[in-house]
């Protein structure tokens, strides 16, 4: 049963297990350093669809189907799915998943959605409200660009602080049994806003939220950063992760070589022209559902803190001069022998 620990953390005493997981990505992501860990790399970023929105829906469908296959279960066995994306009204999720007939609770947590959906799936399973739940998240560079920025062919210059929205989806199936990776704790973050209003510097806007959530978790559990094999934030990028380290230091927590960021891991910044790194909810979703869970399944990583971060603004709020509120949710993942 889920039990509260400290002010913000929920401990899942039954330790729900990740029964299956899958990450599917676009061409650029496939060419990155994690290329061989993905279940599928689509060379054609349209995925054979007529619109970018349909392409993103296809990514979700593909990720969910592959995760189900790897878990060896059928859609009818899934009690609930929690899914989200970056598009208006979350249409990538709803259209991508409408054919499965599984009860859906749509989620929006901007780029933090993977941790948010995984946390909910784990809590539902651990509480007994469900036997099996799914957490599915996606983003698509082209669908995001046209909604939030400029048309693809527009000739503009991106500032060095900007990040590249990943074309990727990740899906996780959570249930009980087996000796897979387990979800031990979750910490739901609160909105943190330090007044950054540059939409081309989202890493800086989200770093304080990540620091607040990790700090809350470490205090609630009485642990230290060194106790973990890997602490990974979701898409803070180069600037955000440097600021995150600094903020944690101010909170008297030194982060060592065990700290990394999904936005830095997904691309090779020296050769892939992504400026400050990756972003988009598919970024942390695909890094979790490829590299991280593979390394945990094989036992190379045993104790991981996955902290996905989101920037909670919209084009309207930015045009009205509002700052960018950030949020971060944490999932503590463990692999026992």
């Amino acid at each position, binding site marked *: 049963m889920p039990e509260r620990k400290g002010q913000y953390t929920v401990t899942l005493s039954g330790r729900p297990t990740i029964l299956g997981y899958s990450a599917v990505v676009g061409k650029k992501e496939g060419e990155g350093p994690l290329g061989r860990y993905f279940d599928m790399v689509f060379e054609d970023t349209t995925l054979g669809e007529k619109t970018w929105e349909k392409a993103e829906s296809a990514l979700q469908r593909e990720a969910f189907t592959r995760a189900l296959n790897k878990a060896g279960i059928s859609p009818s066995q899934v009690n609930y799915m929690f899914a989200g994306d970056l598009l208006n009204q979350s249409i990538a999720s709803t259209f991508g998943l409408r054919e499965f007939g599984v009860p859906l609770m749509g989620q929006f947590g901007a780029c933090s959605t993977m941790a948010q959906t995984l946390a909910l799936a784990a809590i539902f399973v651990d509480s007994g409200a469900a036997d099996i739940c799914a957490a599915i998240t996606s983003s698509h560079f082209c669908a995001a660009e046209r909604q939030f920025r400029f*048309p*693809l062919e527009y000739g503009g210059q991106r500032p*060095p602080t900007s990040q590249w929205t990943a074309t990727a989806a990740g899906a996780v199936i959570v249930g009980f049994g087996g000796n897979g990776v387990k979800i031990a704790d979750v910490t739901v973050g609160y909105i943190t806003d330090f007044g950054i209003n540059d939409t081309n510097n989202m890493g800086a806007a989200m770093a*304080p939220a990540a620091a607040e959530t990790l700090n809350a978790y470490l205090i609630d559990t009485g642990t230290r950063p060194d106790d973990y094999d890997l602490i990974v934030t979701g898409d803070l990028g180069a600037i955000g992760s440097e600021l995150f380290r600094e903020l944690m230091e101010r909170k008297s927590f030194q982060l060592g070589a065990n700290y990394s960021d999904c936005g830095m891991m997904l691309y090779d910044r020296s050769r892939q022209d992504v400026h400050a790194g990756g972003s988009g909810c598919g970024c942390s979703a695909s890094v979790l559902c490829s590299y991280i869970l593979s390394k945990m399944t094989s036992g190379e990583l045993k104790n991981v803190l996955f902290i996905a971060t989101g920037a909670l603004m919209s084009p309207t709020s930015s045009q009205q001069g509002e700052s960018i509120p950030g949020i971060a949710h944490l999932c503590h993942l463990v692999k026992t022998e």
Partner: protein
Amino acid sequence: MEVTSQEYRKLSEKVSPRSPVLKNCIFAFLIGGLICAIGQVVTNLAMESGIELDNARLIGSATLIAASAILTALDVFDSIAKHAGAGTIVPITGFANSIVAPAIEFKTEGLVLGLAANMFKIAGPVLVYGITASIIYGLILNLLNMLK
């Protein structure tokens, strides 16, 4: 020691790299100059073939517009603009690109509400304020002429 919002913004500014302004200016100067030179060459060629100056200038502009529209459609323009910056935006090439790019992008939402409605999404403000400015300029000029 907790960080205040003000301190954090300073910290963020310190670690955020700035755009390479000098490099951008040099590229804009060179590529923008090259585009204008191409326009001039086309205009001169037109004049040499016996076309009047005014019409030759129109041919020069139209050639650049057509070239940018085609390069936009061929997915080449944005790769040049990434380095050229203002060098491709300021000449008439930028205007052509800003109309063709959304037209291509939004045709998935239909010819009326998609393509046509979004075509001037980027160029619209330039038109509104450009035309307003030219009217004000014209009024001032007229007033000065009347005073003479």
